[in-house]
């Protein structure tokens, strides 16, 4: 039986993971902060790309792997679509998560509720937005950097988020390359083909963020409807 996050055993696992992470990054230099990276990543209005997700389970013969694509749109949220082996599409807005039904987009998106969903939404939006204040409010940060490569360990400050995850590890070079959420299990998201841009097309706005065409036409990056 595995306990709920926060158990003493978890602390042991975390200590090992942290040690491994430090060991694997032995050529990187720990730094207090890297404002340059945060500023650069925090300036992108739109980031899109693909992901490969790996969920490591204790009792499964192999890890669970899935893949899909995402669009991050600053101030509006993240469109997250798992394409293989199952089809799941979600819109993570700041105040809610919308579930897009697999029916060709005819049905209006449903709303998802639940503490786990909320924690993931908060984590995803904080990480993608790379908002300095938001990061500082929610996490203790520990930076490591070597040349263009960087690694960031985020430890939740509040108890509610701690109950969901014990640590997040981010790494990249220029953009984010990957994200690992440590819990009883370990979930890794590796990003590839990521591209940053300054605006989002109307088609992506409508299909990915469930706004009407009129809303998408009038939307600006700083004014969520």
């Amino acid at each position, binding site marked *: 039986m595995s306990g709920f996050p926060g158990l003493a055993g978890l602390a042991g696992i975390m200590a090992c993971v942290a040690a491994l992470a430090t060991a694997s990054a032995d050529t990187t230099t720990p730094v207090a902060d890297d404002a340059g990276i945060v500023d650069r990543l925090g300036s992108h209005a739109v980031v899109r790309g693909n992901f490969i997700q790996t969920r490591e389970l204790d009792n499964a013969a192999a890890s*669970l792997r899935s893949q899909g694509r995402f669009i991050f749109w600053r101030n509006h949220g993240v469109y997250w679509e798992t394409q293989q082996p199952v089809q799941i599409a979600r819109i993570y807005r700041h105040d809610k998560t919308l579930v897009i039904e697999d029916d060709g987009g005819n049905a209006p998106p449903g709303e998802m509720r639940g503490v786990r969903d909320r924690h*993931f939404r908060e984590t995803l939006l904080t990480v993608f937005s790379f908002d300095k204040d938001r990061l500082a409010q*929610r996490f203790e940060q520990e930076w490591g950097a070597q040349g263009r490569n960087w690694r960031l360990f985020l430890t939740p400050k509040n108890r*509610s988020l701690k109950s969901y995850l014990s640590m997040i590890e981010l790494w990249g070079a220029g953009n984010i390359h990957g994200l690992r959420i440590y819990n009883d299990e370990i979930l890794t998201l590796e990003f590839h083909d990521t591209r940053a841009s300054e605006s989002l097309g109307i088609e992506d706005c409508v299909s990915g963020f469930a706004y009407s065409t009129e809303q998408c036409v009038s939307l600006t990056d700083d004014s969520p409807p």
Partner: protein
Amino acid sequence: MIAPLKLRLLFGLLSVVVVVLAANLWRSDFALRSDLLALLPASGQNEIAREAASRLEKALANDFVFLIGGEEEDPVHAIAYRLSRNLARADHLEPVSPTREIAAQIAHMEALLPHRHHLLSRQQATALRSGGGSEILEHAIAAAFDPASLGGPASLTEDPLGLFNDYVFSSSADAAAFEELENNIPALRSGGKIWAIVRGRAQPGAFNLEAQQALSRLEQDLEAALADSGRNLELLRAGGIFHAARAAGAAKREVALIGFGSSLAILALFLLSFRSIRPLLLSGLSIAFGCACALVITGSLFGGLHLISLVFGASLIGVAVDYSLHSLCRREYTSRVVPGLALAVTTSALGYASLMQARLPGLTEMAVFCTTGLLATGLFVAVVLPVFNYRPSVKPAAVISTLSVMPARLWQGRRRHLCWLLVPLLFAGLLQSNVESDLRVMHTPDPQLLAQQDRVASLVPGRAPNQFLLVGGADTEQMLRNAESLAPDLETLKEEGVIGEFSLLSDYLPSTQRQRDNLRLLRNTVYAPGAEVDSLFNTLGFTQEARREFRGTLNESRTLTPKKWLQTAPTRQRLLWLGDRNGRSYSLVLLRDIHDTHRLQALEKQPGVQFIDTVAELSAALAARTRSAALLLCLAYVAIGMLLLVRYRRVAALGLLLVPMAASAGSLALLSATGSAITLFHVFALYLILGLGMDYGIFLRESGRESTACLLAILLSALTTTISFGLLAFSSTPMISAFGITVALGGMLNWLLVPLTVRE
């Protein structure tokens, strides 16, 4: 002039008792109370319903919440953090820690893990019964690849189809609604704004004045911080304590205003009437003595004083001054004590004392306060004032003299005609009267607070503390089964929009029978060999060891007992548990957004179910009390009539009763004509009109040669009464206002009608 020995001894004894009690009171913890509900009758609920209502009130009514909203997170967080720190430091207030609740919920989820195969939500059981296994499998496979389903008390091996995780997270939906800012401050996002939530609880309760003062200081600091922030931040508040604090603040202001108004009016009247400060000092002395006695005796008897008693007490000045006026207006002393003083004090005290029949703690206190105050003032006037031997040396101002004889001149030679004119008008007014006993008309909440409360409710929904269902059973198992059989009806009411949400104990602690059914259902459907759970293991590639481990937990699963559940149940869930009372077991069903109480009442046909509507029951009790108060008023007239017959030994003396009777009827007719509904507190005021009317009639009848002086005293008395009670009419508390306006009208009508008690 010296009063009789008996009176002097009585005065001495009273003084000694009051000094001793005052010394004792000084050492004790004297408390001022402000709970308006203490003035209302106990509802007709049975013992268990009362206990449930009181428990809910303690759990929900003492809580308060602040919401600070803005477009940017940082300034909102800064203000909320400052508020939560101040709240943690404040006396008589305690923060309701969101992290403590979350920790309790997590601990409870872990404690439920060994019982997970016995626990299913109603929706899950319905899906399994209707062959929804394939959908559950589909959902579980999708969840395995969904990063948002990470985390939960049970791992994928322990809960492969995610049924337990879904069950516990659906039962903690309230906590899920909030995100957490830095320093564990919960928040939510709505309408493009982020709202930080700061919750607190008043200790020992929302009606504690020190808690209200502490909250008021917090609010002041908060408002200053909001103004200093320079941002467009919004503040919302909700909680009974805000209403209680507003009511207490209004009562305090009213005490000051009424006391000041009465004092000022009396000062002006004395100067106009006596053109000397001495009578004012003597009257002030008598009132001060009466008030001090009332304060000390009432405080000692009740262990404190209600603010409303003080408000009524402030009006006591207007009545108590009557006795000194009658003493000071006399130009000649034909007897040692003012003629009729004893009878007047007795009838007035009888009027006030009749408030005791209401058997409401608050009103009993008021009655004791006013009765002791009047008796003490009367004794002071009889014993102390003659010692000063004061006689008016100059005539009063012309306006006062003219006014004092005006009623007598008005009636002179026109008695019959005026009666024929006024009686039909009186009946016409009375015919329009409308008796109202709805509790809601007794309190007018601050509209701004109400508007804020509505907005808070739309963002952070709460449960109704005054309307709930009580579910009983011969034992815990039966009670839980009764709750389970109620669930479908509640679901229907929810679908029809009769209620918003409901919290049912059996959703968190199913009956043993239901738990066994749940396990059987799982074994026969999705957990059967070769069924959905095995499909999932195959799809995800789980090892044989993992499958064996899962089967083992299925065999080892145990039922969740009430004892085990109670050990870790979070506060919000445990609130539903009442336990055993008088050989029966009880639980609560909390409701939200109630739109039709009749439909909830109809649920009482279900076994063991009772709908409790505290507001409706209090209103019904209030209506019954209004009827009995009116009946007892008639009996008070009879009792005073008999007293008059004993004193005067003539049937004609009963004519004295006609003055307060007509003044009461006239007041009600005037109020009804202006569209005011008659409440219990209007009826209580009629007792005082009776006392005052009797005073005027008795003094005039007993005045003999000094009828002019007596008419002057009656005028001054009527004016002071009208001013002091008339000021009460402006009170923001409807019951005080009702009392004040009725007595003010009655006082003036008593004055106009009093010449009818003597022959032309």
